[in-house]
């Protein structure tokens, strides 16, 4: 094998190695910027603009507008659903701050999907309950569904 052939093989192999590295990086790049927006979100977002930002569902008669604490230490506290998603917890960044010892700093979240509202537990210590069932995944709630967080009960109101 001549010296030149070996040199060319060496350069060719390093080139293959780096072509692989760079294509892997370009796949990551297109994965970041080429994300597909589903039809529903695109229609709601007005066809582009800011696809990642969710447009609020159109107002309908009878759709909930606020979250109200119906029982517990912060009885009567409310938060408007206009600022969804709404964070509930003991921390300072929560939209509804509960002074309840059984509530975690960032306990649960209420967010919209389409024209449905759902509550999602954020890995709290004592859990989020609908009725007597501890929720493990985002769960749909409707007007008047009682969501129990610690010793506090919240529900959606018009």
């Amino acid at each position, binding site marked *: 094998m001549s010296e030149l052939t070996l040199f060319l*093989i060496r350069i060719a192999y390093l080139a293959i190695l*780096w072509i692989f590295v760079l294509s892997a990086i370009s796949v990551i790049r297109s994965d970041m910027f080429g994300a597909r927006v589903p039809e529903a979100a695109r229609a709601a977002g007005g066809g582009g603009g800011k696809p990642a930002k969710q447009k609020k569902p159109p107002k309908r008669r009878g759709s909930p507008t606020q979250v109200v604490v119906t029982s517990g230490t912060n009885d009567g506290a409310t938060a408007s659903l206009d600022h969804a998603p709404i964070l509930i917890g003991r921390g300072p960044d929560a939209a509804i701050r509960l002074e309840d010892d059984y509530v975690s700093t960032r306990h649960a979240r209420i967010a919209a999907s389409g024209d449905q509202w759902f509550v999602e537990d954020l890995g709290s210590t004592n859990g989020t309950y609908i009725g007597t069932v501890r929720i493990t995944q985002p769960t749909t709630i409707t007007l008047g569904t009682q969501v129990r967080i610690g010793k506090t009960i919240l529900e959606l109101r018009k």
Partner: protein
Amino acid sequence: MSQSSALMGFVHRRRRGAELFLLILALAVGIGAYAAVGIGVEGHVPVDILGYGGWLAALLVGAHVAVRLVAPYADPVLLPVVAALNGLGLAVIHRLDLAEDTTFARQQLTWMTLGVVLFVGALVVLRDHRVLTRFTYTFGLLAIVLLLLPMVPGVGKTINGAKIWIGVGPFSFQPGEVAKVLLVVAFAGYLVLHRDALALAGRRVLFIDLPRGRDLGPILAMWLVSLGILVFQRDLGSSLLFFGLFLVMLYVATERPGWLVVGSGLFLSGAFVAWRLFSHVQDRVDIWLHPFDYYNAPRPPYSDQIVETMFGMGWGGLIGRGFGEGDPTRITYAEADFIMGAIGEELGLTGVIAVLVLYGLIVERALRAALISRDGFGKLVAVGLAGVVTLQVFVVVGGVTRLIPLTGLTTPFLSYGGSSLVANWVIIALLLRISDQARRPVPDLSGPSEAPDEQSTQVIKL
């Protein structure tokens, strides 16, 4: 948490086609290296290139089909990157085999086959990583049993001064490699439940929130376990890996730098005491600081490994000598811990950087999966697995390049070593499972749900 809500607006694409494309390139990296080794060492393309290439391709296509079927939304980059590293490692080990007349590459290919089988098995059996939370304490206990096994007389084997092996018939196995995966799951399950207590309680000293005394229990226990590994098994690398892993996961779970301060303090004091007390630790540090004093030394400790590696890397330079043109057999155990030395000699800095970037990509994809994962347990497991790869690469490459004292750990996917290879394939399977769950579109919650108020009252006749 705002991350996931910002991402709710779009769906990740499956990208299985991109994965297949990258896998073909990865095969070119692996088989190309094998062919280049044949040409460089023997002067002709190896005769079994079709059989070897076919076997490698069959394994990877099998893994790809399995991902396509059971984890369609999984990350498209992880599997090809791992395949390329594994293929390159096999070729380098084969090159050393040709020079030294050993058969490590053949055994490594067998282990890779087992690794891919376990990878597919893990993906098929484990459809949802959250199931693993049930086994938090079982896995923790199992990991400790596995770590203790090498010290049981009759089962344990001492190889090269480290008591980290068990002998099963003709095979030797490092149970610590399996234990690290189990420990990640156990830590994640524990921290998901207890992170509020660990994150909130405590007092503030000099801008740093120090944790509460009684919450120090688990970190002290982990510190003792890693010190025990250091003292009784004489394994610096695993000790550093386990403690560092726990610290990383604790920090990520609680978002409190105080833990890093406490943990680093514990680690540094432990390392200092070990350095003062144990001769094998002193030897490592002396070799690290003054390698040439121990080169060709008349009696142990020897520094020939590290010095030959430095010679090799220096001779390799920017683009390397080319496969077959270097002399990596001068490095003892070049196929195991020192494989980066062999790569540095024959592929040069260009090749070493490519390999390091590939490790970086694995870690980046793992952290990405952690960011977009929707459950705390998945986040912590992904971060922990990323931590395992990071720490392992840092410790071994840092040791080989004389950045830190040398500790024995395998280079993930590259080094010869069956237990490590198999465990790392399972790590990749877990990462793919978590990223599949994270990238899968949110299940449609707007299905028909009957509102309880709207149901008409019915008369029930008894």
